[in-house]
């Protein structure tokens, strides 16, 4: 008598075969999971953009790692996040250079071996021993990239000649059209430069500090608003703001690529450099992986990724990185003046003494500066 076989509709397997396949799948699942788990997660604390796909995707695929970024806005915010987390929470810390000293003083970062990084290929000698990155002859942070802050303006209402001085912010036609990136440090630094403090822009005595406050207050009637990252973009893009204090190519560069008639220049009074550096978190169990990634970011390929970062551009710090950028993306190298002989070449500007590294106030506290900033905003 014909006895029909009980089959599963799935792939035409009979029940016994299905059970075998199912059993095998169940038994091998732990091994499959373990294979997936082999992807190493690296916790990154950084400004927005550094852990995004355009920067890290290639590296992740090639090295079976996964970055878990935690983004912050501002060095204070970064220090607070680390202070409130258990040791070893962050494997990789991207910091503004002026905060590295504080990271080190608080014992949040590991010592690094200089031999692991291309310190002999830096575009400027300062980058090999960047201020604050070294303590007692030991290295604690590796400079990754930088950017310059100067006069950012709309080319339709400010000429290139006018933009050669911070005085253009006081142009009568710009009343209500001058915007601020809502952070006291870059703006007050620029006002200090405008007051002629030059290299001592952060080291102000009482009289100089009073003068900087007076100059800044004089600018208040020109100001049309105080903006965060997104608001700064919008303000310049939709024309509400025709000039911006406290920013540079890191904002206008993105808009310029998008076709907006904006630009940033370093005026005759000088500009400020923001510098971003990588450190390895104290107590990290993935220090080796973190070191490997920093080495990648310092390689020509990594430097190109950094220079092209979608969130905001930054300039290369190594000779090999710059050469790779020129070869890979001449348009970006030209736009950002990363060409030898360009008068606005960031390295040339540093060598000419027109650029000053961003720092924190030397004779006042950050709170004093912030309190004045609040007064200024409510004036």
């Amino acid at each position, binding site marked *: 008598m014909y006895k029909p076989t009980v089959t599963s509709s799935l792939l035409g397997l009979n029940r016994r075969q299905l059970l075998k396949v199912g059993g095998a799948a169940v038994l091998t699942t732990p091994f499959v999971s373990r294979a997936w788990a082999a992807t190493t997660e690296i916790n990154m604390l950084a400004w927005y953009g550094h852990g995004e796909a355009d920067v890290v995707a290639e590296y992740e695929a090639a090295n079976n790692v996964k970055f878990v970024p935690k983004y912050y806005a501002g060095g204070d915010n970064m220090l607070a996040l680390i202070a409130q987390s258990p040791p070893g929470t962050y494997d990789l810390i991207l910091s503004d250079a002026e905060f590295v000293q504080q990271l080190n003083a608080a014992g949040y970062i590991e010592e690094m071996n200089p031999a692991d990084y291309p310190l002999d290929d830096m575009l400027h000698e300062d980058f090999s021993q960047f201020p604050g990155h070294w303590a007692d002859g030991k290295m604690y942070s590796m400079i990754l990239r930088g950017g310059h802050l100067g006069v950012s303006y709309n080319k339709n209402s400010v000429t290139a000649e006018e933009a050669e001085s911070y005085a253009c912010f006081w142009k009568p036609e710009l009343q209500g059209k001058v915007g601020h990136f809502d952070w006291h440090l870059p703006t007050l630094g620029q006002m200090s430069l405008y007051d002629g403090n030059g290299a001592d822009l952060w080291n102000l005595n009482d009289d100089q500090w009073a003068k900087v406050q007076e100059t800044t207050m004089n600018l208040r009637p020109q100001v049309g608003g105080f903006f965060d990252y997104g608001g700064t973009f919008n303000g310049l893009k939709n*024309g509400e703001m025709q000039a911006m204090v406290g920013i540079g190519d890191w904002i206008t560069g993105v808009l310029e690529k998008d076709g907006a008639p904006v630009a940033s220049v370093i005026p005759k009074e000088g500009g400020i450099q923001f510098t971003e550096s990588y450190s390895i978190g104290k107590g990290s169990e993935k220090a080796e992986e973190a070191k490997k990634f920093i080495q990648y970011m310092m390689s020509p390929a990594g430097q190109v990724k950094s220079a092209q970062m979608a969130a905001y551009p930054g300039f290369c710090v190594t000779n090999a990185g710059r050469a790779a950028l020129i070869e890979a993306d001449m348009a970006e190298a030209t736009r950002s003046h990363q060409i030898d002989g360009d008068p606005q070449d960031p390295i040339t500007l540093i060598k000419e003494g027109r650029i000053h590294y961003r720092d924190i106030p030397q004779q006042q506290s950050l709170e004093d500066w912030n309190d004045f900033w609040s007064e200024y905003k409510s004036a």
Partner: protein
Amino acid sequence: MAAPFSQTRESPMSSKPEQRPNLYALTWRLPIIFWQLIFFVGPVLFMVAMSFFLVKNYRMTEAFEFVNWSRMLTRGFFWDSYWYTLFIATVSTICAMCIAFPAAFTLAFRASEATRRWAIFLLIIPFFTSYLVRTFSWFVILSESGVVNAVLGYVGLGPYTMLNTHFGTLVGYMTLTLPLVVILQTVTMSNIDKNLIEAAHNLGCSPLRTIWQVIIPLSKTGLIIAAIFCFILSFGDFVAPFYLGGSQEPTLPILILDTTKSGQQWPRAAVVAIMMMVTLFAIAFTGIALAYRKGKGAK
């Protein structure tokens, strides 16, 4: 001689029935009590305690110092922000109440029941979307190259600066509060006994006088509650003054952000927050007392 009260015996008829705790009713009340204790009273107490803490190396340390209070309350920028926030929230409340009233009046007295239901449903819809998204949409409308200026341009007007101004802030506040105020006013006025309005008409009361002397007094409670909600929402809003007002001048919520951004001064931000809460308590308490106060001749 009157007997001492201790010897007075109440008659069984006059004694109140014995009040037994109703465990069933209490059980239903407990969740809201716990909720308030955990999510309101607890955090408020912690915030008050935090205002006396100190920040050392970007980390809060427990202390009992008045330095945060003295530092904030002696600064001009704090009081500038305080009075500005109070002023702009008051203007927002007046605007919202005035704009909402004709709409609510029409819905309550002129529209059919079905129309009113649909209108209230449509007024609820904005709450389905993020307030931040609705705020950002104003960028397209209010910017100098935006829709409003484009339309004004056709008749030879403008362009006018509307973003990053007090006007921009008010537009944001209206986005947040106006639907709610219209709903509250409509519901309140819908509950007025129509016979009273007809009686006023029959007695020769003009329409305007009917509004002033019949409708507004009868809907006083609801109108005040709507105004209180509008004020509270405007007073504590960060989004509109920051994104549409361009932080000029900073309101108290913006000051809280600024204070925490630099040096992680959460204790000083707590001082600002407590001052905001005290102000809102005072205004809400006064408003509610006013709303439920019985008028002259009321029984």
